[in-house]
């Protein structure tokens, strides 16, 4: 039954991610700020869930499912490679640094909230 918890959680997470990514067409920023915020916020949420949710099933639904489906690593690296091919090396490096540093910090902050 655990696959249902993971699957449903991830579907909701992915839907929210899609809704937010749709906004990036409206924001005329030349930087993948939406994916950045999604990943940071998802890591923060997972930290909070890891610290406060103790029921195994609920943690699978919220953590492995929702947060796992909400955040994405494939799109992150695809956007990084796009910046690289466009020879926007500074932006590429900045996106790298912001995602990984604030992302990991986000999880640590979440776990201590």
């Amino acid at each position: 039954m655990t696959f249902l918890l993971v699957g449903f959680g991830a579907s909701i997470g992915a839907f929210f991610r899609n809704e937010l990514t749709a906004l990036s067409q409206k924001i005329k920023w030349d930087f993948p700020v939406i994916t950045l915020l999604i990943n940071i916020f998802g890591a923060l949420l997972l930290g909070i869930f890891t610290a406060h949710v103790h029921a195994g099933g609920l943690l699978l639904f919220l953590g492995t499912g929702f947060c796992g489906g909400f955040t994405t690593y494939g799109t992150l690296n695809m956007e990084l490679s796009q910046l690289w091919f466009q020879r926007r090396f500074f932006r590429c490096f900045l996106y790298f640094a912001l995602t990984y540093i604030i992302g990991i910090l986000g999880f640590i902050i979440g776990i201590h909230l």
Partner: protein
Amino acid sequence: MLFYNNWGEKMQKIKTFLIIFIGAFIGSNLRYGESLLLKSSNGFPYGTLVANLSGALVLPFLIHYLQDRYHLSSKIILALSTGLLGSYTTFSTFTADTYRLYQSGSWMMLIIYLTITIIGGFICALLGNYWAATRAFIDYAGRRNN
């Protein structure tokens, strides 16, 4: 974005949700299955790593090659890229794995995991792009010779 004022828009959202649902359900469980299958005694997160790296490789190939090659509709792309590969790969679990390795003092594994995730995923995405370009070129050359 989450508030809809008419019925048509509401139906459209439900449709989008169902399309993403199918992809995300499969993708997340592939990742979950890999994490169970590749569970190691030393606590190294092979599952997350395999899911993330393979997803990072396939996503550019899907977008830059398969989409054009098989004339995939926007719905199929939504299910496969946003749904399946988006949920198959994960960033949040990576941060949790990193923190766990740090907490347990497994410095060597932490450094290896960080390096492979940060550099390896990027290289996989670059390779995915080259793979797509190469396949597209082979198809093009093949058509010209016929």
